[in-house]
């Protein structure tokens, strides 16, 4: 859905177009779900879509750190679920991007605070106002992860090019196909997109990492982007700026490509080959 379309529809009826819910999930921990959620949501917002990113990792909140808004957290997702605060009070406006909001997780509660009715109600409310709702899933396949994916329309499956990450992603894909609301209601299945993160073409060449082709063959879902391993990711996380804002970095550009492809643009895959140093570069360094 693009903005133009939405405006046209709005003149007819305000209720016709609701926001899309996208879950960012992986099964395994530490593969880059939160980094991807932050950059993906920022990228959608930068393109003029009103976007909210929700941290479902209740008890281990991280998204606010990556988004650089941890000091502005007053109310959180659990407060909204328990009707202790309104959405308006809990949503934090991003300082760099007007269209972007963060709904942080609670640090003091646990995943039992997430109820299906409560999450459904909050998401329904957000759908009225936002074009895209990005759900940052916790690791694992337990309640928190299932709640994050239950209401999803589309899913970004974040996978590192190594066997255990791929196996866990396979498992979570099975859960998407079996336990989501769309599955339960027999509706059109959740649209799945594969994001391969921490990709190092050099290590693939040396046989230390699975290649993009290997991962794709094992998971058999469409690839939406490959994010190269880069120091920019760590330094961006540490400074609380989603790496997509680091425009010169390869990772930032790769996330931009992911957003473009998600919006339906045809972009060739980049950063799949190891950088070859030319003769001059080899002689003169740099």
């Amino acid at each position, binding site marked *: 859905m693009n903005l133009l379309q939405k405006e046209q529809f709005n003149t007819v009826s305000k209720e016709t177009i609701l926001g899309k819910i996208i879950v960012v999930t992986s099964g395994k921990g530490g593969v880059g779900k939160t980094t991807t959620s932050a950059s993906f949501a920022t990228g959608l917002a930068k393109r003029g879509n009103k976007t909210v990113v929700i941290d479902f990792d209740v008890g281990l909140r991280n998204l606010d750190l990556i988004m650089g808004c941890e000091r502005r957290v007053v109310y959180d997702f659990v407060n909204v679920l328990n009707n202790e605060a309104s959405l308006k009070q809990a949503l934090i406006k991003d300082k760099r991007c007007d269209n972007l909001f963060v709904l942080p997780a609670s640090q003091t509660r646990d995943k039992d605070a997430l109820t299906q009715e409560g999450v459904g109600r909050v998401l329904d409310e957000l759908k009225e106002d936002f074009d895209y709702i990005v759900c940052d899933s916790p690791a694992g396949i337990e309640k928190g992860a299932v709640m994050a994916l239950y209401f999803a329309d589309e899913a970004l499956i974040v996978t590192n090019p190594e066997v255990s990450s791929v196996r866990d992603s*396979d498992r979570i894909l*099975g*859960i998407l196909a079996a336990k989501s609301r769309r599955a339960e209601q027999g509706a059109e299945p959740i649209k799945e997109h594969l994001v391969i993160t921490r990709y190092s073409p050099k290590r693939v060449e040396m046989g230390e990492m699975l290649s993009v082709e290997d991962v794709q063959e094992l998971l058999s879902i469409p690839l939406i982007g490959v994010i190269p391993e880069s120091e920019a990711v760590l330094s961006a996380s540490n400074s609380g700026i989603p790496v997509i804002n680091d425009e010169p970095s390869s990772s930032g550009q790769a996330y931009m490509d992911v957003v473009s492809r998600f919006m339906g643009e045809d972009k060739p895959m980049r950063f799949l080959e190891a950088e070859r140093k030319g003769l001059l570069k080899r002689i003169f360094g740099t």
Partner: protein
Amino acid sequence: MPGEIIKNGEISLQTEVTESVKTRQKNNSAVELKGSVFTLPILHIQVASIPEIEADLLKHLSKARKFFENAPVVIDLKSIAKVAQDFDFHGLMKLLSQQHLIPVGVKNGSNQQNALAVSAGLAILKGGISPPDVDEKTSIKEKPTPTTDNTVKDATPVVAGPDKTKVVTQPVRSGQQVYAKGGDLIILAPVNHGAEIIADGNIHIYSTMRGRALAGVRGDVNANIFCQSMEAELVAIAGNFRVFEEDMPAEIKSKSVRIHLDNEQLVITQI
């Protein structure tokens, strides 16, 4: 107690719940009684001597030690039902627990054996249909326990009817299980590591087979498995199985193969 049916290594607990239980289920009672189908390994006892059983059992278990860790087993007394009325169930249970097997019940025992089994804490399983008799020594009809609770919950819902072919077009993923009850199973997408596909009849996989495939689980020794690219972790026909670790022979690995039984032996041939 619900009625049990054992069919060649498989126990299906068919719940014939009485009215009163049904009513209570609706009233949010503390427990719910539900029927479910499990595949269990059956230990066929051919001799009454515990040391002899132990020696042979160890030999069988050594082939797939991990596979049988904490596996529930059913003890089939058919071969000794007429001879060993004072069979040492306590001795057998001790032996099994030392080997990390969990005996759950006995079948085909005489009345006296059954009484002893019950006093040793084992259940009596009735109504079993045995696989065709083949002259054999002490043997384990090894049948893997395919499911944990989790996998059952995530499994694609199985719609079953008699002699129905089940066709699956989506990938079968880690932790999922597909069962074609009473018929053949045809899969047109990859079966991934940790997935399990089961059929009473034949199994066809027109893609890469990386998980576990069990055909003829109700004892059809004529069932076949066909797959386009063989990378399976395990294949089984009518309870005869083979586990592949890193040792898949090059002539079948990633090849199109047919798997069938020839005189109780699994035969895997390239096609």
